[in-house]
């Protein structure tokens, strides 16, 4: 039974890490109805810039992080100016494709500046089991994961408030519905996109730091996006809390499945299981658990 709980808790905590990445997607989808393929690349770029700055110029992390944030702001502004602005009111698939182009560009840029070597990233949080829980319940819970989960919860709360309590939140949803109409009522699309991409950059940085500390800072950070996708479809593309709930469900069930079903079918099912699970959810709720209903009225 202990083992079961270990797997469950480990899964839930991993799920939170997935949610962190999924959040970045949600932000941009909410603001433009676009699936941002470049989110993984942004995670990579942010983490690499941060580590690169601190290694190359011998900066402390506390200095490197704000500097990276600055870079991410610039990146957000540049993306808005160069990529998004000329593509207002284009079909979703076009914008989606543009983010794919962006992915290549960012990946190339990151490696051009910082090289392709992997780096280690040490945060002042150790990745060891929490002793108290270990002693008293004999369940392994990683300290790092718990802290990551707290950070993530904080971020989600802040973003959820931003969206529900400010007029920016409403404007975002309006933009996602109809670019032209949003412009017509005077919503400054460009400003909004710049803000959102910057916030997405910030989320990418947080995700990059936490994932980077876990996996090392290397190109493969871009792959964490693949972990976030099922979370995203399960929680709903448009919902911030959905990302968290989706993350928890996906994390827990994928771990349980790998441990309990995996051995029966030869294992390695973590690659597709979350997707199939999310698919099954979608069959019941085609817009994910918390996503906005797709309106098809004629």
């Amino acid at each position, binding site marked *: 039974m202990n083992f079961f709980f270990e797997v469950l808790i480990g899964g839930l905590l991993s799920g939170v890490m997935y949610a962190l990445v999924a959040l970045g997607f949600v932000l941009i989808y909410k603001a433009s109805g676009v699936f941002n393929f470049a989110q993984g690349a942004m995670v990579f770029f942010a983490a690499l810039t941060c580590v690169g700055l601190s290694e190359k110029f011998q900066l402390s992390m506390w200095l490197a992080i704000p500097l990276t944030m600055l870079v991410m702001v610039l990146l957000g502004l540049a993306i808005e100016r160069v990529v998004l602005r000329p593509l207002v009111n284009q079909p979703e698939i076009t914008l989606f494709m543009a983010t794919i182009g962006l992915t290549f560009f960012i990946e190339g840029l990151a490696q051009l500046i910082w090289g392709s070597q992997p780096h280690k990233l040490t945060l002042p949080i150790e990745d060891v089991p929490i002793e108290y829980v270990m002693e008293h319940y004999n369940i392994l819970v990683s300290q790092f994961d718990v802290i990551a989960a707290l950070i993530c919860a904080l971020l989600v709360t802040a973003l959820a408030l931003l969206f529900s309590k400010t007029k920016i939140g409403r404007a975002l949803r309006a933009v996602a519905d109809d670019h032209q*109409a949003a412009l017509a009522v005077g919503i400054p*699309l460009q*400003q909004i996109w710049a803000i959102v991409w910057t916030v997405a950059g910030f989320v990418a940085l947080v995700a990059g730091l936490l994932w980077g500390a876990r996996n090392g800072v290397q190109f493969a950070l871009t792959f964490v996006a693949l972990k976030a996708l099922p979370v995203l479809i399960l929680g709903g593309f448009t919902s911030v809390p959905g990302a968290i709930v989706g993350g928890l469900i996906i994390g827990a069930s994928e771990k349980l499945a790998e441990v309990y079903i995996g051995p029966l079918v030869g294992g390695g099912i973590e690659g597709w299981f979350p997707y199939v699970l999310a698919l099954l959810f979608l069959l019941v709720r085609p817009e994910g658990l918390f996503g*906005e209903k797709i309106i098809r009225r004629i």
Partner: protein
Amino acid sequence: MSISALRPEATTDNPAYLSVNNIEVIYDHVILVLKGISLQVPQGKIVALLGANGAGKSTTLKAISTLLKNERGDITKGDIHFRGERVDQLTPNELVKRGLSQVMEGRHCFAHLSVEENLLTGAYTRHLSRSELKAELDKVYHYFPRLRERRQSLAGYTSGGEQQMCAIGRALMARPSMILLDEPSMGIAPQLVEEIFEIVKNLNQQEQVSFLLAEQNTNIALRYADFGYILENGRVVMEGEAQDLASNEDVKEFYLGVSGAGRKSFRELKFYRRRKRWLA
């Protein structure tokens, strides 16, 4: 036609609030739609833009509000001035801030926002307190009681007419000094059509709001407007004071549906009018 003498000329004491000078619009780099349109809207006036389907009314309005760019249309010639400032290179947001709002054709509500939220986005450019916002909302609800009833439902689920009201109400929320209205009466019950034009008149007279409206309901449009322009095939073919237009024989026949012998029943017209016109 001599009425062109009556054209609302921009003079120093009566500066054209909005003036469109000889603009040419091309979609997709190849489709020439507007072939040199000029028009003026003096301050505090209502100007109607009339014309058959596909004449270019909506395109003209979109050119003014600069929304055209996002539909792959370009203004290749001419310029547009609003309150003495050249505006064809501004962003829509800047235009709205300067007081020019557009109600787009085809309703364009934010489907996933409730009716009330839709209205609230209209006030995006204004910095209003909660109570001021509420007052503004109440004003719109006063104009359109139906919206108050449906305020909580998602705009995407409301009826066609309700969406139209929502779109108009949303533009009013910005409290513009000039509104471009594209077919406001479309899909609206007759009683309400009158009311909408009354609102237009009220705003015009009490708050000095200028209007440029593209309208197919020529009858009512000319009744409320001060000036009118008639577009055909991307060109202005007739312009003048509304009363003059309304009494012009051609306009009467083709746009008002009354010929020498007065209005005919729709049932009794045994031939296709437009075909007749072409053949003539």
